[in-house]
């Protein structure tokens, strides 16, 4: 996961004249923000004549082998269509030339995605994209992958063999009613193919300028007519990035991952068992950071009748971080020396869900969940958590009813109740209304409440562990951050070739994280909930099929966030520490199939200025425009050769981080790859 905290971006920067501190940008791990680029598949299936005419050429057996994606299919939880959903398909990921999950997320127009250096990513929806972005819920096959350390994701530790990803569903807007705490500004649902859909041998190998080596292999086999199994492995190795002030960022890294998935099916039962293991080794100016993790997940679902089914899922996840931590220096004064933070997190999660059609007009989903986490930390002088061993339990229950009010009018009401050890009971209700204006036009509106429950940073952090001076700490009275969200959306297929989705939102936030100072002594600073405010925005995505072989995609995103310090309170960062988002972002993508098996894909993205909001001293990431492109040749049905370029317009450019000679940049990367499927 990521680089050590305090390393490059000083955790704290001070303003000598006022004595106030400003930004805490990187208390921890560099992650960051910004914007997303290109495409997504519209939820409403466009009746593209070319697809239909191609399908008509197939015989019955071939038709039966075509893989379909269905609207609003729900792998584990209901994906309400009355929300701002974009789906990234396997084909889009492949043709865009993405090499990691984080890169693939640039294809969602409703995300802010920013890369820092060779391995750091900040990814968020509807803003609040900082180093410690914490309002997004991310799941891989139903397993939650954000860390309770800061409620964010170590993106460089979360990956899959992209060939075997079925799709990525990206929901902007709250999803707490179904998914619970942390699904505040969005939900990312990464879904891999079932073993029966990833049969045979796949191999890939490649390399280039920044991505020096990538290799992947998968073998899928049928154990019986109803049981299939696949194994996979993936390796990649990236070079150092560069610093704004010149020189190497010393952030080269490499990682390996392997795993399996077994799917079995009987008449009314489906059973899945899957697991992964990964190890990362990352350079950092402060030393070597290591990450390792493993997980094992089992899911059983049973169809009780056509109108009722249930599923039971359980997983165990282990994630270990050994993070090189830089010394803590503030205003030129060394507060604590360099060291190493070890974190060992074990999670056990059980989730039950039942869906039933209660009547002609009502479909109910309800479920129960339990999660136990066991977190053990060995502290560094400059970065520590107390208590060092923490066991926590999370209990949850939810129910949602989708009611057909009229032929074309649907009302969905639901609520989730959670109990966590930090704040006790939390409630996350929502009401959604969907009107099928015409068969291919849907108008929807929603009002929801969501919460971000405290993470270990908010409660247990100690920057500077005894005997060293304490500079910044969490507090036991840190509350949940709250959101009330109002959304409006429209999805339409205007004719056979044009599909668009629009959504607009108005979000009201309360109890957002702020930083107080200790009276008289100034230090330590500590976290409080003294910010409130609102944001509004607009998201657009459109797909145009220009011809049978040429499709275009366009995306636009507007975010305005207004946070303020609550009256009578104080925030060290003037309410400017929790956001660093582009007001606007635009993406354009083109996918062209040429004769002789040649495929040309390109994606252009324009990202507005990022205000890094470092207190009274404004800092920005300049607006930028970048281009990705990929040329592939399907030399035979089994063999594909490709050449891909990322960030082609500049040798390097910043996407995130306060201006400084130490800011690490996203570099141009050109790589070639050979893929073979059989």
């Amino acid at each position, binding site marked *: 996961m990521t680089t050590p905290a305090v390393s490059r971006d000083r955790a704290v920067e001070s303003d000598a004249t006022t004595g106030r501190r400003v930004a805490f940008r990187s208390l921890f791990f560099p992650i960051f923000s910004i914007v997303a680029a290109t495409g997504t598949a519209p939820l409403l*299936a466009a009746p593209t004549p070319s697809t239909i005419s191609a*399908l008509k050429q*197939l015989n019955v057996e071939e038709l*039966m082998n*075509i893989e379909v994606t*269905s609207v609003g299919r729900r792998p584990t939880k209901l994906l309400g269509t009355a929300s701002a959903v974009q789906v990234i*398909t396997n084909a889009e990921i492949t043709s865009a030339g993405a090499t990691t999950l984080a890169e693939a997320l640039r294809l969602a127009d409703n995300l802010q995605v920013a890369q820092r250096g060779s391995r750091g990513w900040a990814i968020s929806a509807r803003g609040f994209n900082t180093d410690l972005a914490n309002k997004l819920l991310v799941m891989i096959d139903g397993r939650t992958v954000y860390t309770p350390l800061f409620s964010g994701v170590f993106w460089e530790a979360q990956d899959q063999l992209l060939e075997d990803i079925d799709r990525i569903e990206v929901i902007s807007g709250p999803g707490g009613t179904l998914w619970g705490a942390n699904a505040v500004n969005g939900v990312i649902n990464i879904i891999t193919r079932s073993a029966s859909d990833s049969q045979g041998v796949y191999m890939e*190998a490649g390399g280039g300028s920044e991505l020096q080596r990538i290799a992947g292999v998968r073998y899928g086999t049928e154990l019986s007519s109803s049981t299939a199994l696949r194994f996979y492995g993936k390796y990649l190795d990236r070079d150092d990035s560069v610093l704004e002030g010149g020189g190497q960022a010393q952030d080269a890294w490499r990682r390996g991952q392997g795993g399996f998935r077994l799917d079995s099916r009987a008449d009314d039962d489906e059973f899945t068992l899957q697991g992964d293991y990964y190890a990362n080794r990352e350079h950092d100016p402060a030393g070597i950071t290591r990450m390792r993790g493993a997980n094992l997940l089992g899911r059983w679902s049973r169809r009780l009748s056509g109108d009722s089914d249930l599923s039971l899922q359980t997983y165990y996840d282990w994630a270990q971080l050994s993070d090189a931590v830089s010394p803590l220096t503030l205003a030129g004064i060394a507060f604590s020396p360099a060291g190493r933070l070890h974190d060992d997190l074990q999670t056990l999660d059980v989730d039950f869900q039942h869906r039933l059609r209660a009547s002609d007009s009502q479909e109910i989903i309800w479920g129960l969940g339990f999660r136990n986490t066991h977190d053990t930390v060995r502290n560094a002088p400059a970065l520590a958590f107390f208590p060092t061993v923490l066991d926590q339990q999370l209990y949850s229950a939810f129910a949602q009813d989708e009611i057909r009010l009229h032929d074309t009018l649907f009302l969905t009401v639901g609520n989730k109740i959670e109990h966590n050890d930090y704040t006790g009971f939390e409630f996350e209700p929502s009401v959604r209304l969907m009107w099928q204006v015409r068969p291919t036009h849907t108008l929807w509106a929603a009002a929801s409440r969501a919460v971000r429950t405290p993470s270990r940073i908010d409660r247990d952090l100690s920057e500077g562990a005894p005997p060293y001076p304490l500079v910044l700490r969490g507090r036991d009275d840190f509350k949940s951050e709250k959101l009330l969200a109002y959304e409006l959306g429209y999805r339409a297929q205007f004719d056979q070739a044009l599909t668009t989705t629009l959504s607009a939102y108005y979000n009201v936030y309360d109890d957002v994280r702020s930083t107080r100072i200790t009276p008289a002594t100034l230090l330590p600073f500590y976290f409080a909930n003294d910010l409130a405010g609102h944001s509004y925005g607009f998201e657009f995505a459109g797909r145009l099929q220009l011809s049978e072989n040429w499709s275009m995609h366009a995306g636009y995103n507007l975010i305005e966030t207004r946070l303020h310090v609550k009256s009578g309170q104080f925030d060290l960062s003037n309410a400017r520490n929790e956001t660093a988002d582009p007001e606007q972002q635009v993406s354009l993508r083109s996918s062209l199939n040429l004769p002789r098996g040649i495929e040309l894909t390109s994606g252009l993205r324009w990202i507005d200025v990022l205000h890094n909001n470092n207190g009274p001293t404004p800092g920005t990431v300049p607006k930028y425009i970048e281009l990705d492109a990929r040329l592939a040749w399907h030399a035979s049905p089994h*063999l594909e050769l490709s050449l891909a370029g990322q960030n082609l317009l500049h040798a390097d450019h910043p996407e995130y981080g306060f201006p400084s000679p130490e800011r690490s940049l996203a570099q141009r990367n050109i790589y070639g790859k*050979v893929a073979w499927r059989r």
Partner: protein
Amino acid sequence: MAPLKKICALLLCALLVAGQPTAGMTAAASVTEPQVKAVFVFNFSHFVEWPADAFATPTAPFVIGVLSGEALATQLEVAIRGEHVAQHPLQVRRLSDIADVGDCHILYIDKSAGAQLASILAALNGRRTLTVSDLDGASQRGVMIQLATESNRIRLMINVESARDAGLTISSNLLRPAQIVRTSGGP
């Protein structure tokens, strides 16, 4: 990296033995369930034989009724454009009322209309209508062809007796890859 070298070596072998092209569509952009189902329904018009008395005149339209499946109907309209069965032009009718189902040669009953299935089948009794549905268990209840989705793929389940009772003959091209189902239990 040793593992990388090994994989490169394997790829080289692969180049030498790369086989003949497979027929059909490779994983094109995403294909949706309604698209594939619509093409299946269109194909049924060619793989099933209707007796001559199913049509008023030799050029009367061949009617495919779609009950509640809006997404499928939209795709089907694309699929049948300009198509004929013998000299009968294909026509799609979006139905909302089961009173209208009788005039169809093919009737697609979306699972969202599943609650009305028993009354639909009763209304069609004795008519030359090929019934198709994606409702779970539809074929056991007497629907002639059920489109079942398993692991993101469409499977056919065919109730041959029901079709025979309606005077329809289903081609072996359709029966071969399908699962044959008998009516079970009550109506």
